[in-house]
């Protein structure tokens, strides 16, 4: 009873408050009122990650807020995602993708009771996100914490991949460690699972005897002829003497990808690079892109000689004549690509960290990140001039918005205000856009 009264009182209060806000809003600075996008324009959705217990871990849920292109580019405009946003369905950091035109957000809830639930929102400005087309749950195929990306096929398809916990063979003698892979494609227009497949992916018997195995799959990419998916791998090794996970600094194999037929998702095959030795799984977003030259460019992580960009040619094999070492191109050591986006004409914007980068105040395991403009065709790279900060890191970063010649990024140090930056992909010029009001402990993980 008391509770109901409290509720009633708070409603009355809220109504009063709303009235007050409306009556006051005319006094506010004009930059506070978002303008509607004109025709030809589009919405930009900013994603903020709330902390969970430790500042900067971004695991306390995800909040979205959308603004017009004009507002996004306006350095005078202030956006308060955390205050005014929309809490997207995901108990932890949501796995977000967007349509190329920014009108639709795609989300797969990560963890919790709704983990694995794919939903689609129409972007209608500010905190107005309307769920459309029903929900589809892929958790049975890919778990409640699935790894997925959309394919660049006109926003029709998303693909999620997973591997069951790899198990050591039975018996007293070590032979292999294997899991079972699942690939599932989602029809994002009708919001349905369109196809699924499941298979074991043994390595060569020599590799298996030494303990190597695929521990995780991620980031599928559609090839130029749209008949194969290239899936990134995260490798792990069992110590054949103990049957336990090898946590030493063992020798790594050449970087591997799994190739399956598309759209059947069958016929798995492994390809191996002789150039890179890192994993090809990325972390929270895309890790390989199809370029106009018909080749797929793929970044590596945990590469002993720093991250490389590898080329997979039209025959779906690694082109080992191509090698781009980020260490060499930037003159750094032990680089690590955290998130990146190919924007055309060989140009890529790459978020990375490297040895010697400052350690974050918040998380001793987390290093400062940087953004580089990389030319994949001329094998050159340069750091983009941004106001970097020891607490600015991008390992959770998911969204670069590409609109015409402009590439948008939304960055801030943990707990400090940041900005949208608009980068001209042709000239490389960087313009400061809208201010992102932050809150201590939180950060931004993308603009879509």
């Amino acid at each position, binding site marked *: 009873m008391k*509770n109901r009264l409290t509720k009633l009182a708070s409603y009355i209060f809220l109504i009063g408050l709303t009235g007050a806000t409306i009556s006051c809003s005319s006094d506010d600075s004009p930059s506070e009122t978002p303008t509607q996008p004109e025709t030809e324009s589009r919405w930009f959705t900013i994603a903020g990650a*709330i*902390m*969970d*217990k*430790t*500042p900067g*871990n971004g*695991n*306390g*849920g995800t909040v979205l807020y959308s603004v017009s292109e004009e507002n996004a580019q306006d350095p005078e405009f202030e956006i308060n995602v*955390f*205050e*005014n*946003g*929309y*809490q997207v369905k995901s108990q*932890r950091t949501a796995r977000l993708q967007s349509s190329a035109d920014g009108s639709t957000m795609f989300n797969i809830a*990560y*963890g*919790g*009771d709704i983990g694995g639930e*794919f939903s689609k929102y129409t972007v209608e400005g500010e*905190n107005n*996100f309307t769920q459309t087309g029903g*929900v589809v*749950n*892929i*958790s*049975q*195929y890919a*778990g*409640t*914490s699935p790894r997925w990306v959309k394919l660049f096929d006109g926003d029709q398809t998303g693909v999620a991949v*997973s591997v*069951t916990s790899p*198990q*050591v*063979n039975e018996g*007293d*003698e070590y032979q292999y460690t294997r899991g*079972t892979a*699942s690939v599932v494609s989602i029809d994002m227009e009708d919001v349905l*699972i*369109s*196809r*699924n497949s*499941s298979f074991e992916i043994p390595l060569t018997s020599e590799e298996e005897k030494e303990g190597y195995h695929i521990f995780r799959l991620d980031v599928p990419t559609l090839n130029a002829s749209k008949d194969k998916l290239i899936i990134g791998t995260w490798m792990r090794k069992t*110590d054949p003497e*103990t*049957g*336990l996970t090898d946590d030493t600094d063992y020798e790594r194999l050449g970087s591997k990808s799994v190739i399956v037929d598309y759209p059947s998702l069958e016929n798995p095959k492994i390809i191996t690079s002789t150039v890179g030795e890192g994993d090809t799984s990325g972390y929270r977003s895309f890790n390989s892109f199809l370029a106009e030259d018909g080749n797929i460019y793929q970044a590596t992580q945990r590469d002993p000689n720093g991250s490389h960009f590898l080329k997979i040619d039209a025959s779906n094999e690694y082109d080992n004549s191509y090698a781009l070492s980020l260490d060499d191109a930037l003159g750094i050591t032990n680089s690590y690509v955290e998130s990146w986006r190919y924007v055309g004409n060989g140009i890529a914007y790459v978020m990375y960290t490297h040895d010697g980068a400052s350690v974050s*105040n*918040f998380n001793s395991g987390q290093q400062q990140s940087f953004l580089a403009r990389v030319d994949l065709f001329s094998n050159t790279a340069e750091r983009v001039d941004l106001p970097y900060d020891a*607490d600015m890191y991008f390992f959770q970063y998911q969204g670069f918005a590409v609109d015409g010649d402009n590439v948008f990024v939304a960055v801030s140090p943990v*707990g400090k205000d940041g900005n949208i930056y608009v980068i001209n992909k042709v000239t490389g010029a960087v313009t400061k856009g809208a201010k992102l009001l932050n*809150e*201590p*402990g*939180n950060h931004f993980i993308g603009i879509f």
Partner: protein
Amino acid sequence: MYKLQIIFLFLISVSAFPQATKNVIFEGKVVNSENKSLAWATITIPKLKIGTTTDIDGNFTFQNIPSGTYEVTASFLGYKSLTKSIEISIPVTEVNMQFVLKEDSESLDEVLLKVTSIKSEIEKKGFAVNVIETEESSFRNLQTNELLNRSVGVKVRRNGGLGSSVDYNLNGMSGNSIKIFIDGIPISTYGSSFDLNSISPAMIERIEVYKGVVPGELSDDALGGAINIILKKDIGNAINASLSYGSFNTFQTNFNAHYQNDKSGLFVKASGFYNYSDNDYEVWGKFVRNILPNGRYDYVRAKRFNDAYRSFGAITEVGFKQVKWADKISVGYTGSNSYNEIQHGAYMSIPYKGRFVEAKANVFNLIYNKTNIAKGLDIDFHGLYSNRNTVVNDTVKYNYNWFGEKSLDLNGNPILRPQGAQQGAPTLANIDRDIFSFRAGLHYAINNKHKFIVNHLFYDIARREDDEILSGLQRNFIGTRDLQKNVTSLTYEMRLFEEKFKATAFGKYYKQDIQKMDPVVEDINGERVRVEKDFSKQISASGFGGAVSYLIKPAFVVLVSAEQAVRLPSENEVFGDVGENIVENAGISAETSNNLNIGFKAGLYQVKNHKFSFAMSGFLRDTKDKIVRRTQSNLNDAVQTAPFENLGKTKSIGFDAELNYIFNNKLDVLFNVSKFDTRFNSKYDNNGNVLSLYNVQIPNEPFFTSNLNVKYALDSFLQKESTLNLFYNIQYVDSFYNIWVPREVRGIEQFQVPEQFIQDAGLSYVFPEKNLVLSFDVKNIFNKQSYDNFAVQRPGRAFYLKMNYSLSKL
């Protein structure tokens, strides 16, 4: 005059239940006509075959006297013996009795008798404590956890029906910061087959719930509070048995027999229990859906199909009571066994099939206690050896829907679980624990005003694991875990101003040794050899606290207690537990908390036929390095397993209040309300800015609960001398979120657990001979969706019938 009224109150109250074995502390004083204390006078209660002598101040005490009417005799050399009848009945509050007799020597002697219920005695020491007397409930279809849940400031969070996993929240503190004891021994000694799910209220004398401040005698690192289960201490010859059957094919049976030889003091006790439930209650709503091959949801109503629970066990004890060299000496054996199917993980959105946990335990104990071993010196000792075993079985590799059928993919093939088995990777984990647990106490009373207590707890647990599903090679490399804990406490108790002022001060010293052995392979003389690598971690800590109570007026007592409490990481928190999905974290450190309770108890007051009492308590828990289960982590997050970690700081502030109203000794209304606000208390980030989550509620914790319990007794209903009791209970839990809510933005509503009103009703009929009690209960009358945890539905409407039979001869 006022005091006499209270005394009168006590004497007229009538026991509604037969064979009342509720025990009280019975204290008194012997003085002569000049009001001078008589030391070494003898006091006997012939009916109970017990006796004692007065101390230097003329005081005497009997512990654990069952209710009933007794002749009490006082004798002293040179004086004439005095015998007087006293009735000890229920409910007991407090009584002072004074009677006079003429003597040979024409002098007048007085024997002052005072009876205090143990409940009242404990509750008025100054601690924030609930004493739950289980007797009345033992005749009803109530589980121990339900009783606790109705108690003020306690929230029991169950993951399902009978046998489901349980988390206790005392004033906002939960998880491993709450320690549970059986007769002062950590419950982990007894294992999960002999826990509060399997022990019926009929086996329990009373439950003490200490909130925030825990007395030194319960020597363990109970940072947030302690629940101490006192098992029945039988007297005389008695047999009782009960059988309960109800919805979801639920059986709960209990048997207890006690024999005592008056001459030799020999006693034998045997009791047993058997519980079974299919727990196939219906679930529905947004968390209950079958996922179709195309990923769409089909919302269904379904019966839980993998949730059966069975437990059985026996307690036997043989020894001597009230002999010259011991008040009690006994050896005992407790054996128990349980089988528990697991329907789902942390959320019920994914049903499991074929996952189950089996547990068994064999516990041997030795008890010795003696009062006045030397003048004013009491000793008690309780030692146990336990071997317990847990097997987690999870090998079924397919996904199932809520109808218990395999989920099929688009091609019509069954879909594999993402991790290979229902909850994670396939497992047949076998965990064997050997536990030694000793508790010893020395009580020294300088006089009736000052008392010292030294207590020591030694606890040693050795854990061996195996997993038959692993390859022979891997099984050869499973490590071992050992934990040893020593807790010493020193307590000083003071009673001044005619016992109006009571104070307790205590200090505790904790020492914990954790050893771990992991086999590795090393190069020795060019050969690869299996070598056992040892690690160990030693943590010590100390804490202190105290409690003060002051009886301002008769029946109005003010209570204050505080403790700087410590909790050491448990074996599971350091090394993990496969069955509980806990991952190892060897780097975890101790948690500390400054706890404070301030409150009062008023009553029982009487105005004509109305009696009422009121109690209220405010509390603060300021916790640092809090140990909580990590809900979220960056990497390797595909598995529903997580370690415990030091979260930082939290602060709980809140209050409890309880109101009791009795009319004409027929109507008894108990209302309590409890608000516990647990908030994130790490204030600044490294730049000195106030974190957005500072002072925000910790997710997934209910923070406002209330309970109303009504009982009405009808005498001579249908039959003369019979009693019909009618019961009604309503429980309210306010809504809460399962995600951080720094502010209520749009879309947050989907993370909310709705507010709940759950109503239960029941009746019990006591037959005229008082040997037989029949009771009937309906739980969740309106079949509401009930949640203790987010996305985990508890049972709907259920009916239970219970029959109790008891026979006793004192």
